[in-house]
């Protein structure tokens, strides 16, 4: 069965999403058990794929063939749909598994039955399946399809609280941006298909010559993916979406955003890695990254809505990842490798710290009925665990040692300084500002006199937050161990793994 692990990690949550609604007609306890089983199985499969990819190299799975490795038909043309998981894809699968598991543990006590809990669980599974599909697929059109699956599931989840006005607006805004981004990606896929008659990423990567049309396709792909990732100037959907979505969906949305960063890495380093990956594109991505960091942090300063404040923090972290990707492309090898290590390590750190903060915000909204900072205060008297988790997540987000955010951000500063001291200084400045912002938020919400009654979160939600807190501390205390085991294979897959990826899919 482990041979089929890549596709099972996508197909099982998909089947689960559809069957969950049927099961929910029978019995709610049965539905919860069923959802737990699906979630446990999916994350186990993602871990199995990761172990195989880290130990044996690129995992290729061909759909519909006589055997999973038969990716090329007679004549050497890869017409079949393939999943190709290298170190980077496996690493992203781990992030998705972490986010998904935490979201499921959290949501059973967070969602209320009368809100449409069955639909929420079903959409969460669908979003999860889409993310895993995006990071595992080796086919450009399938990538687009999974991108759209995540977009639709994400928009439906953002608008989960249909009885309020702002979630509907946020969902609409997100839908507009996602659709536009998806269309750009689709046009790029169409251009490449028209040029080379193929959709297989490895085959296209070999065939791409660097013509004008290829450049156009690269621009469209980058544009669409940056929109999906929420980089400045297309970031306006992200604070609304993160701020209004139910907390358990937000952490998976963060993983979804990181899947867009994954796709940028895949497009720049694998798909266009042969002909077009030039330092100029690196500078472009790095400057968009630093713009994202600065704009998001400055916007976070003025927020009064706790969810939106954290959301701007999340957008700024995304800027750090883009900065790292850009610097990695400017200098491949040398300090570029350090930058990519920092950027890729920062993805899982960001998923943990931002995810934890959003889960705490969800708990605050549930306990106090509001996330408006001026009306909150003194929540720390009753919500002790939540206050501790918020402080931990906030310090990790701002990059304070010995937490995990420091480990990855330090690598990013160090390498960015080698590329451009000004960019590094700006990034550091933004980080300090972010610390001020989150400390103010902590002070406003949890310290001071008791402003309103609040009841502590149920145990399931605390366990979910505890898992992320554990990740933050362990990754912060032993960064070397994790960089060596799970980050380094991903970095090598990006920098030097293109040949191995092509050989694994195309044979020879």
């Amino acid at each position: 069965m482990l041979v089929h692990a890549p596709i099972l990690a996508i197909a099982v949550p998909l089947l689960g999403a559809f069957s969950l609604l049927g099961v929910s007609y029978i019995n709610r306890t049965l539905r919860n058990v069923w959802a737990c089983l699906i979630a446990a199985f999916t994350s186990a499969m993602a871990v199995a794929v990761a172990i195989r990819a880290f130990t044996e190299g690129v995992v290729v799975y061909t759909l519909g063939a006589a055997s999973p490795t038969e990716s090329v038909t007679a004549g050497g043309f890869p017409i079949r749909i393939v999943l190709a998981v290298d170190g980077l894809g496996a690493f992203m699968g781990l992030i998705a598994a972490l986010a998904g598991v935490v979201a499921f543990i959290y949501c059973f006590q967070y969602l209320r039955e009368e809100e449409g809990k069955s639909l929420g669980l079903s959409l969460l599974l669908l979003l999860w399946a889409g993310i895993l599909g995006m990071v595992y697929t080796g086919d450009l059109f399938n990538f687009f399809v999974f991108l759209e699956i995540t977009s639709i599931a994400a928009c439906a989840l953002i608008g989960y609280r249909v009885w309020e006005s702002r979630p509907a607006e946020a969902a609409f805004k997100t839908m507009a941006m996602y659709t536009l981004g998806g269309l750009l990606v689709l046009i790029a896929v169409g251009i490449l298909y028209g040029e080379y008659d193929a959709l297989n990423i490895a085959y296209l990567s070999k065939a791409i010559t660097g013509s004008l049309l290829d450049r156009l396709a690269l621009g469209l792909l980058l544009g669409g993916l940056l929109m999906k990732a929420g980089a400045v100037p297309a970031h306006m959907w992200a604070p609304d979406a993160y701020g209004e979505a139910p907390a358990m969906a937000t952490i998976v949305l963060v993983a979804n955003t990181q899947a867009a960063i994954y796709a940028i890495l895949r497009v720049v380093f694998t798909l266009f890695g042969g002909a077009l990956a030039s330092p100029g594109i690196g500078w472009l991505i790095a400057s968009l990254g630093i713009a994202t960091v600065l704009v998001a942090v400055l916007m976070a300063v003025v927020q009064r809505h706790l969810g939106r404040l954290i959301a701007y923090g999340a957008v700024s972290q995304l800027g750090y990842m883009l900065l790292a990707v850009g610097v990695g492309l400017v200098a491949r090898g040398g300090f570029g490798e350090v930058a990519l290590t920092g950027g890729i390590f920062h993805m899982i750190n960001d998923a943990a710290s931002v995810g934890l903060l959003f889960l705490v915000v969800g708990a605050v909204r549930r306990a106090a009925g509001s996330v408006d900072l001026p009306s909150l205060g003194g929540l720390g008297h009753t919500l002790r665990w939540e206050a501790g988790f918020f402080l931990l997540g906030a310090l990790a987000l701002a990059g304070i040692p010995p937490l995990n955010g420091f480990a990855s951000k330090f690598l990013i500063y160090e390498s960015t300084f080698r590329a451009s001291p000004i960019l590094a200084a700006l990034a550091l400045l933004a980080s300090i500002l972010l610390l001020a912002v989150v400390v103010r938020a902590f002070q406003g919400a949890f310290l001071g006199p008791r402003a309103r009654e609040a009841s502590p979160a149920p145990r399931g939600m605390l366990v979910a937050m505890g898992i992320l807190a554990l990740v933050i501390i362990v990754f912060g205390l032993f960064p070397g161990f994790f960089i060596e085991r799970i980050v380094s294979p991903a970095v090598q897959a990006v920098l030097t793994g293109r040949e191995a990826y092509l050989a694994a899919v195309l044979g020879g």
Partner: protein
Amino acid sequence: MSVIVRTVSRVVAPVALAFGAYVIMHGHLTPGGGFQGGAVVASVVALLVVAFGCERWRKWTHVLLPLEDVGAMAFVILAFLGVGATFFRNVLAGSGGLFGAPVPQLGPNPGALNTAGTLPLMNWAVGFKVIAGLGAVVLLLALFGREDG
């Protein structure tokens, strides 16, 4: 709607249904397939809603919504059938056809109806999903529009 519209709808609806079923059934031979045929059938739902009003179809939403789930699950389960070899493996390839023509293992299609193994079944699964999904969307939009106005 007027008696003309109702009468024409009565005539057109079965024809459109048959055309939709044709497009789904021949998806592996001619342009079209589950999605396209399903959209044609869903347009019949729109026609009926416009011609006869939406109130009398209200109870159909309880049929359409589970049917959509069933269609989606059928598709994934059909794909799971192949998991002995690979996911999506055409397990019916090489077996005898329903209408006499055997299913080819690989290569050109003789063009008879049942010559593609699990593909037509998947077309039907997608067809059901689209019929139920789009039909429910049309019906619910009409019903919600009434409640607001």
